[in-house]
């Protein structure tokens, strides 16, 4: 049983294209996140949703648009991809109301050529 699953695992695309990454969690968590991990392995928060409502929106280009159709899903759409968008994108979830850890998906490695 996969707790936090994201698809695709790998995504190779050309500059200027639009792509989406999907994430689903079956843990019953209220809060979901998108993180970007760069080549130096630094995990930076991009967005956070709590019960389908956006609560954190860090300084991220507006080419990135998250969508949460329900609290078990948080998708990430990226328009006009740039070389600098190449990274591993992790979806994560947590209970959000108490001291509960983040549970991560296995990541999507995005390569923009």
């Amino acid at each position: 049983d996969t707790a936090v699953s994201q698809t695709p695992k790998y995504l190779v695309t050309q500059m200027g294209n639009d792509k989406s990454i999907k994430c689903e969690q079956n843990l019953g968590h209220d809060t979901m996140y998108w993180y970007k991990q760069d080549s130096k392995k630094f995990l930076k928060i991009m967005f956070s949703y709590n019960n389908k409502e956006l609560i954190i929106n860090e300084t991220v280009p507006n080419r990135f648009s998250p969508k949460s159709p329900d609290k078990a899903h948080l998708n990430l759409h990226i328009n006009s991809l740039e070389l600098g968008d190449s990274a591993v994108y992790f979806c994560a979830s947590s209970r959000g109301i108490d001291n509960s850890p983040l549970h991560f998906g296995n990541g999507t490695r995005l390569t923009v050529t």
Partner: protein
Amino acid sequence: EDKVVQSPLSLVVHEGDTVTLNCSYEVTNFRSLLWYKQEKKAPTFLFMLTSSGIEKKSGRLSSILDKKELFSILNITATQTGDSAIYLCAVVSNTGNQFYFGTGTSLTVIP
């Protein structure tokens, strides 16, 4: 600005050595500090610390938090090659339940 700093950035040791990884933080409205281990894929949860001075232990790994000096350490004794990974420290803020990650420590254990 909230930040989490880990040191060292990387470490190479021999099997059997003991290592200490450091995490210092400046986060407003602190709630808890977590340690994660990242091998090839997703970071996996190791410990959560909320109170100063109480050691959390799991096998050869242990961790402690000092909320006065704003840091935590992760100790690994009798290291094994399977301990090779990136160890990430994250601090949780009560504001928006945000998790701030450090830059990680890359540990390599050689036989």
